[in-house]
């Protein structure tokens, strides 16, 4: 069992996301992360899903996804050379007197941006692979993470290769 990153090109129609996600839950798969948005082609969306399973399970889920009429292409890019990114917004407890400086120092190391400050909190914005965001939020835990919002992972192949329709 390991995490797989699936890049799914779908027609951008009402209900298509529930078709895709419904299929995962119906077949007993947990979605670890999900990101959806429009893409280079008009009328299409790209869904990036991270899910955990053994090879046979992932193969089955991909085949089932391919059967959805509005799914144009499904690729498991886990083994391909790719770049992955996630965006997180983290609101950390940070009193001006005590930990604020430390939090800002940590943010600096992770190249996170401070996007909001209040009397009791600092809000950071950070981009990077999943592990980087995990590491940052773990470090910040000691100060008190008030709220953590992650976009879910998106991924793109390196070089000239693309995940586009061949159907």
């Amino acid at each position, binding site marked *: 069992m390991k995490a797989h990153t699936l890049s799914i090109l*779908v*027609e951008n129609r*009402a*209900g298509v996301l*529930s*078709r895709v996600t*419904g299929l995962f839950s*119906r077949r007993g798969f947990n979605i670890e992360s999900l990101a959806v948005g429009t893409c280079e082609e008009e009328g299409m969306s790209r869904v990036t899903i991270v899910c955990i399973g053994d090879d*046979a399970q992932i*193969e*089955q889920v991909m*085949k*089932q996804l*391919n*059967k*959805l*009429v*509005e*799914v*144009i292409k499904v690729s498991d890019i886990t083994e391909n050379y790719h770049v992955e990114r996630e965006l997180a917004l983290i609101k950390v407890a940070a009193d001006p007197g005590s930990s604020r400086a430390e939090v800002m120092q940590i943010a600096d190391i992770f190249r996170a941006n401070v996007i909001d400050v209040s009397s009791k909190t600092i809000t950071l914005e950070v981009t990077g692979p999943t592990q980087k965001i995990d590491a940052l939020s773990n470090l910040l835990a000691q100060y008190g993470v008030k709220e953590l919002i992650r976009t879910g992972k998106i991924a793109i192949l390196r070089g000239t290769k693309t995940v586009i*329709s061949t*159907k």
Partner: protein
Amino acid sequence: MKTGAKILIEGLLKQGTKTLFGYPGGVVLPIYDELFDSGLPHILVRHEQAAAHAADGYARASGNVGVCLATSGPGACNLVTGIATAYMDSIPLVAITGQVPTSLLGNDAFQESDITGITLPITKHNFLVKDVKDLPKVITEAFFLAKTGRPGPVLIDLPKDVCTAESDVETDIGSEPVLRGYKPTYKGHTRQIERAVSTIISSERPVIYAGGGVIASNASAELISLAEKLMIPVTTTLMALGAIPGDHPLNLGMLGMHGTEYANYAITECDCLIAIGARFDDRVTGKVDAFAPHASVIHIDIDPAEIGKNKKVDIPIVGDVKTVLTQILDRLNSEKKYENWNARIRQWKEKHPLIYDNDGKLHPQFVIQTLNSLLSADDIIVSEVGQNQMWTAQYYCFKKPRTWVTSGGLGTMGYGFPASVGAQVAFPGRRVFDIAGDGSIQMNIQELGTVSQYNIPVKIAILNNRFLGMVRQWQELFYNRRYSYTELPPVDFVKVANAYGIEGIRVDDPSCVKQAIKDSIAHEGPFVLDFRIEREENVFPMVPAGAAINEMIGGRPK
């Protein structure tokens, strides 16, 4: 300018719809008004579930898309079991539901239910039409999806205002729709075909395991050619009975939980398993690890997701069964006849035939055999679910494809009677029998009203054991005979039939079986046969749940 309702009816007619099975209600009034003088016949059922099953029975018997129609909310929800039944058995069905007007969608309006949401996991695809301009395209796509590739049910949800709105969009029906995300593979990969051929030829003990895909693909002739060319024995699933004649020397009958011993032994011993349009269902395989443990597995299926889903496959071939079998036949050059293997199978057949007690009592198997002797190859047998279904599968000798109509994957009690209505509507000239249990028939017995109203001459043969027999059998065998809520009080089915203006006869004695069936056949309209069978008769042989399929119990008479 045409209204949505008119576009719908014209679309259905252009798609070749011969009969609609349906039930009216508030939001489908515009459709019913259009139907009134449209020339498209409509059968008014007594429950929407029956409309879906009738459309399904129509599709199975004829091979054409069955169409059913229901109103929103409760009407649509009543279709659900019928749609799921068709989905599990890959039956081409188009279900049309009314919906509340688009302005009220999502408001919990009167009789609103999210039927596209509800049927998401049990349809091949579904549509909620919000603009009348989309309707012609949707109808074309719905029929195309239902009948091509791996067939299945498609639902079209039509808000009332879409039915009354007018449009001048050309009804571009008839052309093949372009669906970017839907491109079924029909032709088998040449190299895989070659590998399959050489694997078959180099094997010593091949067996064909044929499933419902052979029927769906109308590939019965190709299946028989393949079997006969090399003398390869054939076992069929419940869904494929009739794909090869029941009395064909190479036929092993059904395999699996209530299959023949020789079919299951052949699977266990074979060194090459040719799975054709079958999906290794757990009722077929028993313990999967012990299913064809010595075999190289060739799997032909139009749905890539079925290949390798339950059983590891050595040679996958994605494609239409008929096309792939033709490709294989074109390349198959061998004089092999597998004499030793066939001799071995003949021994099993002689040693382990299907048997039941011959003690002068009224046994259901005898009823089925007698029925078999009185009907002809084109007549259609429909069943309910339970023991009645298994006895029919075991003891009726199906000679042709599409003469056997039963709910396999979902195992829906109450399916048979309405499905027999659909089959009879498809073939008014053939005799159609629904073999029922007293439990199952009471799940849709209200359809006596439908067959009475339209004088649809289906015959209902109830194997009446006053039990939910199949469940009782499991309780007897695995729950220490604790018959928890499986006993049914006696019902006078003849009187029930009479109340609907239908004739019937009760049969208690084996000596009267033949005459009673003859009388029912001679009778012009629908007819009810109430056979009071041995109450605690069991279906044998049987593979207990989770056991290997060669570990069968109860093959001998008591």
